[in-house]
């Protein structure tokens, strides 16, 4: 192609370059003290210790953050506190936003949902079932009327394990 020589020199002078970046035509040289120097893979790994809320909060730092901050979410824990927080919003919309952003979720743990919010569990699981194609494990408590939940995910269930805690 053209400008090959210049591109090559730039490439050699650059440190880590951001790969797969949609709007940069050429590799750039980044300052050594700037996090911009890291490629997407490393950036994703570095951000993987953030809480769920922090991820939402910080996805507007840069396009690289937006691309990478949710990639590492493979499990999500939904408890009463979380439900309380999203009850003030349109629940389905908020849950769908989360599920779409985190397509790599494999595990949902909703054992922290108490009976008060139990009615939402079936809806919640359906949303994640539709958006997270890698979903493999669901941890949840069973109640007397859990029968409503099961038919919605029923055909997808291939194995049920019962975990009983020592004190219960």
């Amino acid at each position, binding site marked *: 192609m053209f400008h090959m020589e210049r591109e090559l020199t730039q490439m050699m002078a650059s440190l880590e370059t951001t790969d797969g970046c949609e709007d940069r035509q050429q590799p750039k040289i980044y300052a050594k003290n700037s996090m911009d120097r890291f490629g997407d893979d*490393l950036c994703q790994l*570095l951000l993987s210790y953030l*809480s769920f809320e922090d991820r939402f909060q*910080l996805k507007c730092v840069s*396009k690289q953050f937006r691309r990478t901050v949710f990639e590492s979410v493979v499990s999500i824990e939904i408890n009463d506190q979380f439900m309380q927080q999203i009850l*003030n919003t349109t629940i389905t919309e908020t849950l769908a936003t989360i599920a779409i952003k985190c397509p790599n979720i494999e595990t949902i743990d909703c054992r922290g949902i108490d009976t008060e919010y139990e009615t939402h569990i079936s809806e919640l699981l359906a949303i994640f079932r539709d958006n997270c194609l890698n979903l493999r494990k669901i941890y949840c408590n069973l109640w007397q009327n859990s029968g409503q939940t099961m038919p919605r995910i029923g055909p997808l269930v291939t194995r049920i394990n019962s975990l009983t805690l020592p004190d219960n």
Partner: protein
Amino acid sequence: MADNADHIDGDDNEDVRAQQNLIKIKLKSSEGGIYECGLTAAKMSDLVKNMVESLGTDAVVTTEPIILGNEAVTDAALKKIIEWVEFHWDDPPVDHDFEDEKDRRNEELSHWDKQFIDVDDQALLFDVIAAANYMDIKGLVEVGAKHICSKIRGKSCQEVREMLKITNDFTAEEEDAIHKENAWIYAKD
């Protein structure tokens, strides 16, 4: 070839590991500096481990140093990395069970690791992280990641950009649109 089952016989044995760490090998930074490191410690780097296994331990001990060509592996970064692996080489092996993994991810850094990674010079900090990533030292990358996450937790986007010297490449309109998605976070206030 990062196959966990791919252990050499006796590799997990504590005595063997301690004895092997008395064997010193040489590592060469991208700036040309040569540094000694215990064999067991050095093998915390999957990159070094694979090289040692393909070349044979004898060859590595007696011949030229192992060259770490990535630009992030500066003299200063390599010295820090050797300090870390020499402290951690006898850590118990990591369990990848779901609950254990979750606990480990949520676990705070030890006092020693906190002091180790709290480097004022951000260029050096990033060199250490990038070099650890290149050398495939997962434990050290994790320390770097936890450190960065602890620094940016609860901060605003602008504060994070300033701290980590990140360029804001969003237009004002794009930024507004993103803020709207966050309604549920602010709803609690």
